[in-house]
């Protein structure tokens, strides 16, 4: 199924994000091969040159490696998983905190509301 993309961010970066997210979620296991450029292009409905660029970017970020004649593989490195997870956590928390501040919730209230929410209580 072709994928929807945000309009302002480069498509290749959105694909990088998506693959990283799949790694964090465990849908794309460490050490395993990514789909070929063509397969991924067909899957996502995206130009193969864009997929190639996303794979190169992942390689530059030391998340995948290309093995000659075999394809592109996610590094088999648990440190990678920890780092990716941490960076997603930071990103999600930043967005959360920003949005809460925007609607006028103080930091103290934020903590209160969040812990209440996690306990399953209504405000």
């Amino acid at each position: 199924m072709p994928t929807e993309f945000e309009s302002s961010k480069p498509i290749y970066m959105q694909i990088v994000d998506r693959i990283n997210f799949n790694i964090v979620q465990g849908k794309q296991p460490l050490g395993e091969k990514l789909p070929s450029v063509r397969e991924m292009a067909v899957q996502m409905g995206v130009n193969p040159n864009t997929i190639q660029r996303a794979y190169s970017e992942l390689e530059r970020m030391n998340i995948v490696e290309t093995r000659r004649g075999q394809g592109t593989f996610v590094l088999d490195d648990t440190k990678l998983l920890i780092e990716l997870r941490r960076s997603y956590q930071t990103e999600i928390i930043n967005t959360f905190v920003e949005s809460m501040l925007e609607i006028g919730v103080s930091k103290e209230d934020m903590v209160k509301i969040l812990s209440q929410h996690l306990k399953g209580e209504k405000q």
Partner: protein
Amino acid sequence: MTIQLQNVTKKYGKDFALRNVNLNFEKGKIYGLVGPNGSGKSTTLKLISGLVFPNSGVVSLNDEAISRKSSEKVAYLTELDMFYDAFKVKDVVDFYNSQFQDFNYEKAQILLKEMKLDPNKKVKFLSKGNRGRLKLVTTLSREAEVILLDEPFSGLDPMVRDAIVQSLLQYIDFDNQILLIATHEIAEIEPLLDEAIAIYYGDVIGQEKVEVMREELGLSVLQWFKQIVAKNEEE
């Protein structure tokens, strides 16, 4: 393979379809020709396929001026509905096979299956979506160096459109082919494109790589197009 348009002007009667247009296309890329209806997109494709000739300027494939024989190298999907109603689906494929040396009959059979087209069904009983699919089968089955698609999605529902996009990506030979898609449905084809060319009432008003638009300008193709149209109208 390269396609070049140099100072090309095309008039229909007194009306300019294209005014002094310069364009270059190279292999391995997917280009989107975007603009409103009547802006000159179809004329550009017809000039490249040798169906019409410029009033002035030169259109060339691999530095050779376009002629009637250029259709050997160019597969052109017209926006018109152009099948013989009495034909069955398989007759259409046979007909194309008899007309084009580069027609890959096996590929056509695979594509028919993938597009779920019944070879024994008469063309006149096909739905609009299936006629669109059949047109694409006949075009993509050719191993031509240039593939021109004129409004390949017009009037097709989103499911058919997705299926067509996927077959395009699967069957285009990126090492050897140039793909040019003319459409006014800009948002739909954006993820497919390497570059977009904006045509506006006979003038090429912009050409840009899609990733540059997003990365440096922060714009989608549609936003980019609207912006240069607005700028153009101020002048």
